[in-house]
């Protein structure tokens, strides 16, 4: 299958609005694969790839044609004792890679999976990943995605979680890398009492752009979703957040929360936040909040009035801003360095 036969969307389409899709020259990439290593997966069985016909867009469809699949099936009733780490090192210049990760948590099982994407600055790459998460009844899945791609990599990724009765899925997305990195993150709560928590931390500088589209879909009663996305843009970087809470007629007595907060740290930086609600039933509890703005002047003055220099005050306030999301991250080795990496991006040595 030649990927170049796919028809690319344009930014005229509403879901690609604000995106940089118009800059993508698919023909300039050759099909390739990342160096993928998996650790901590002993004892997990292979998982089946879901139905490709439901791919939400052309990039997910292209991924579905790729043989690069890591499948993790967590047997019924088991708590997987180790954190599974999946590292994709994108080391070929000019390649397109399409890794798929399938997490199939059977009834009453538990697993934590960290997926990391890395490449060197100067390596031109197009990364089109998909993660499929299926949590059967009472299963508990924690999934962490860390984008540490270099400055010349593009990512257009998809996260899809289907959450069954009384199951809980938590996803964390840390986006620090890439030239343009877009993630579509969808949770579908399909069983009564299903619960999802989505958290993201993103920080773009230079000419980077981070682009998120989130969907919280409640298709069963008494389901709960809680989304907290916090981002910062610096220099001439940009970010877009578009989020939708949809509660269908079946979603009575559900609760859905969506919060997106953005800091603009430079005059040339730009962030957009577009929250949406679509509710087809009564008797639900929903809220959404979104903010875009610079560092709070009063906080900056407070710290400076103690004798803290302005660049340090900015670092403290930005790290403090992200503290709420960093606090939610699971306490595992792979995420321990997130805070210091944010500090590095702020360009303060201490």
């Amino acid at each position: 299958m030649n990927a170049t036969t796919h028809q690319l969307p344009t930014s005229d389409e509403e879901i690609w609005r604000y995106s940089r899709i118009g800059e993508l020259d698919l023909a300039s990439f050759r099909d390739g694969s990342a160096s993928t290593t998996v650790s901590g997966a002993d004892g997990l069985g292979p998982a089946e790839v879901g139905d490709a016909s439901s791919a939400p867009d052309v990039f997910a469809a292209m991924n579905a044609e790729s043989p690069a699949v890591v499948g993790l099936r967590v047997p019924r009733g088991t708590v997987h004792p180790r954190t599974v780490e999946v590292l994709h090192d994108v080391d070929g210049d000019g390649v397109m890679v399409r890794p798929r990760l399938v997490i199939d948590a059977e009834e009453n099982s538990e697993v934590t999976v960290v997926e990391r994407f890395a490449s060197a600055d100067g390596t031109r790459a197009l990364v089109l990943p998909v993660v499929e998460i299926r949590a059967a009844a009472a299963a508990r899945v924690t999934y962490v995605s860390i984008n540490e791609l270099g400055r010349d990599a593009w990512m257009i990724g998809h996260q899809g979680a289907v959450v069954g009765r009384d199951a809980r899925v938590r996803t964390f997305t840390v986006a620090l890398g890439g030239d343009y990195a877009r993630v579509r993150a969808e949770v579908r709560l399909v069983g009564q009492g299903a619960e999802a928590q989505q958290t993201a931390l993103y920080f773009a500088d230079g000419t980077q752009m981070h682009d998120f589209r989130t969907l919280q879909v409640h298709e069963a009663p008494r389901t709960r979703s809680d989304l907290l996305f916090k981002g910062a843009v610096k220099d001439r970087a940009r970010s877009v957040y578009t989020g939708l809470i949809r509660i269908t007629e079946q979603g009575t007595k559900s609760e859905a929360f969506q919060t997106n907060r953005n800091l603009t740290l430079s005059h040339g930086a730009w962030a957009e936040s577009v929250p949406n609600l679509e509710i087809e039933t009564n008797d639900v509890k929903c809220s959404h909040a979104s903010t875009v703005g610079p560092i709070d002047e009063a906080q900056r003055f407070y710290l400076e009035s103690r004798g803290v220099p302005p660049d340090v005050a900015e670092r403290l306030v930005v790290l403090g801003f992200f503290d709420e999301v960093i606090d939610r991250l699971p306490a595992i080795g792979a995420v321990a360095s997130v805070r210091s990496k944010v500090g590095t991006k702020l360009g303060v040595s201490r």
Partner: protein
Amino acid sequence: MTVLEIRGLHVSVGGTEILRGIDLTVRSGEVHAVMGPNGAGKSTLSAAIMGKPGYEVTAGTVTIDGEDVLALPTWRRAVAGLHLIMQYPTEVPGVRLLDVLGEALAARGGSTAGLDQRIAAEAVRINLDPSLTARAVNVDFSGGEKKRNETLQMGVLRPRIAIIDELDSGLDIDALRDCSRRVEQATAEDGLGVLVITHYSRLFDELRPDAVHILSKGRIVRSGGPELADELERDGYAAFA
């Protein structure tokens, strides 16, 4: 011996002149109280001395031991020895006191060795629940906890001059006593000079002023000893307008 000298200070906010020529001299170990009714310009004085954005000095000078304070950015004013205890201390989400004081001391070229213990010792002195010092600065603190925290920071940073803006607002009587007592002790122990801005004289039970200045419509209309506060208490501000 440190001298904070304010000469002919005029300050405007949003194009409106609030302070119209203030002269004050505060020396080490002295407590000067600036008292006045609401709207007299009391808080403008503290904001202008610390360089808060939006407060424009249109004339006059402020110096500390001869150094031009107004030429310095805010953080350097603090490093030069000024400390502001705010009327409404700002909540700074996710930023811990230890980090703020560590950075503040580092900027002064001071040592941060044993900072944890110094904070804990000051917390005991000021009756602040030590667990609060591990939390984000001022976030979800009560009014009293905020002022105790401000006073604790003064104790750790050991400034030469403290500017205290409306210490008693939002404060219960116990917290007011603890905070004003700690400031009074610093005047004796460290030779701290104090410029305390207040509407009411109730904090003078513990923090004893050497001089009282009455501020009205942007000018100091009268200066005197502590007895002036008693006169105010008796006659009210109307007598000085």
